[in-house]
């Protein structure tokens, strides 16, 4: 019984319910929303943002944040384009690894400033948001390559981005693999549990002998590598790259993570929740034009959905805290 309640009160379930409602309403209005192609599109649209959300969750759990994700993603997407300009036959795997390496390097830069120089992550990554984007623009104007088009990339890279296995897009498979690994590591590995401890109470974590600096640094590097991967996937998915790829993505990612129930002040939340949050938000964005919401209102509805999710969450949390307090006082009496 208590186990059932534990599962039911889980944040993931409420997101799944919200998702079911959105999909059901939209499908009622337009049945093709849920045909094979429709489901394919839903997962495809959420895959890249889900990868970013997994990386962001690792950081938010430790009471950190990375606002530079959009810029890092833009930089790695642009890198993959440049690699194809240098040699159109560059193997896909080389591009993917190079993108992840560049992303990890950007993450290491952020991580070093946060973990070693002890500057708050919000400040560091707000700074690098502009620095990395500046490098991206600088690179584009120095080489005079403002845009890289589909016909300049290798056909295998493009079909990698748009292809699928048994109806599941490659991008979604990659996001799922990342999700499973991250969820397992966070749940079972000692270092994974330590990330929660660091976010829950940094002082206590340090006193307990957890190497907080090293763990946070590693989280930044891993998150950076995932962002780098997302950038390369963006390139292969859209087939058109310029220096502004990923602009504004940081807010969408933080929104997905928060909607997914990861506490913004660290210490709790799961990657599964964050990925479901990403899926919910992109599904809403995809459903609005089908429901016929006028273009001018779509963003407002997006924002309202976010506010609603957070307020509901807050209300539930307050009630839960109240109940726990009552139970405790009863026990004491």
């Amino acid at each position: 019984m208590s186990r059932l309640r534990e599962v039911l009160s889980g944040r993931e379930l409420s997101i799944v319910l919200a998702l079911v409602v959105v999909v059901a309403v939209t499908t009622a209005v337009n049945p093709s929303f849920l045909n094979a192609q429709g489901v394919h599109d839903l997962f495809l649209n959420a895959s890249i943002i889900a990868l970013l959300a997994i990386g962001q969750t690792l950081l938010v759990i430790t009471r950190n944040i990375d606002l530079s994700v959009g810029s890092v993603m833009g930089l790695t997407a642009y890198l993959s384009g440049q690699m194809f300009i240098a040699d159109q036959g560059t193997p896909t795997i080389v591009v993917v690894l190079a993108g992840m390496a560049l992303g990890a390097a950007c993450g290491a830069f952020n991580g070093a400033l946060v973990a070693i120089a002890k500057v708050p992550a919000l400040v560091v990554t707000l700074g690098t948001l502009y620095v990395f984007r500046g490098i991206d623009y600088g690179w584009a104007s120095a080489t005079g390559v403002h845009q890289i088009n589909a016909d300049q990339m290798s056909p295998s890279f493009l079909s990698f981005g748009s292809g699928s296995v048994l109806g599941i897009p490659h991008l979604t498979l990659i996001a799922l693999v990342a999700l499973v690994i991250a969820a397992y590591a966070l749940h079972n590995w000692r270092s994974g549990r330590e990330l929660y401890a660091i976010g829950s109470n940094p002082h206590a974590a340090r006193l307990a002998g957890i190497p907080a600096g090293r763990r946070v640094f590693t989280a930044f590097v891993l998150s950076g590598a995932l962002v780098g991967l997302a950038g390369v996937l963006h390139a292969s998915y859209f087939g058109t790259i310029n220096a502004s790829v990923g602009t504004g993505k940081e807010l969408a990612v933080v929104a997905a993570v928060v909607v997914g129930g990861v506490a913004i002040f660290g210490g709790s939340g799961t990657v599964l929740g964050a990925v479901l949050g990403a899926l919910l938000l992109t599904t809403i964005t995809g459903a609005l034009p089908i429901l016929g919401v006028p273009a001018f209102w779509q963003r407002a509805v997006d924002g309202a959905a976010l506010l609603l999710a957070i307020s509901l969450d807050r209300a539930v949390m307050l009630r839960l805290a109240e109940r726990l307090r009552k139970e405790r006082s009863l026990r004491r009496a």
Partner: protein
Amino acid sequence: MITSLQRRKRAALAVTSAGLVAALIAGCGGTTKGSDAASDSGGSGTEKTADPNAPIKEGLKIAFLPKEIDNPYENIVDKGGIAAVEELKGTGKEVGPSDASASSQVSYINTLVQQNQDAIVIAANDPNAVAPALKDAMDKGIAVVSYDSDAAVDARQVFVNQADSEDIGRSQIKMVSEQIGGKGKIAILSATPNATNQNTWIEYMKDELTKPEYKDIQLVKVAYGDDDDQKSFQETQALLKSIPDLKAIVSPTTVGISAAARYISSSPYKGKVVLTGLGTPNQMRQFVKDGTVKEFALWDPEQLGYLAGYAAAALASGQITGKEGEVLKAGELGERTIGKNGEIILGPPTVFNADNIDDYNF
């Protein structure tokens, strides 16, 4: 002790007066330069009549301000413009904001005014948001030319239009009608809901559809992809899903048409739904070759920039003032007559298909 103090005082006085003299000289220099600029503005201001035989001044400083700095289409336009300016022995440069929001260009205009540029060539993100800053620039004697997307009529001297807006709108309908056999439902995938150029074309497209030969074509929806890849993708998906018998999508924006082409090329809709509109040959080459897109159109953006560059130089040199009927000499493009509301038209758009796409590289 006393002498040394006095000496120090004297030294201080000498330094101070030297500084004062220097400041005065600098001040005078500033004033002279300022009055020069003022007489210049009298020369090229709207009050003065045009002198068609005035020589193009050498060393003109002309700045190109696109909607956003990495807008691939406008980058090409600006390249053509800068080439024209260099041909006229001036210096051209391209500056611009990183996002295409309504007010993002204002601070750039103000900076260009402070830098005493001779002319500003702008593609306005919003006709009214940039108007006060541009009027301010014109008051200071800076020539203002708009291209691609017009600013308010009284906030610029000439508007260099790629093609007659009416021609563009009507030719889009003609192109799509030929490809779908003059019958069926079509939708438009535009940029932002408040883009001047897009909305004008869409109005003419709607007007063209009222003609009897297009009575079997229905425009069922106008969607907005905000010139963003992901948004354009999702809007395309929504169009295809919500209108099952959709015959064609017309996307008169380069970002929209390439995102839509990318989605359709890897979906079951490939070959079933016609996609056409305005795009660059480089962007669309892949999709023309794989059969997703049969035909689309665009004018040569480098020529557009070239024309805008010449117009800016002619304005700054007093050759033209932007009045209807004046003639602009535009180098290798020949002559163009200024039309109503200071509009100069480049010419009809070029249609690209599998046969000719490899002849173009932009």
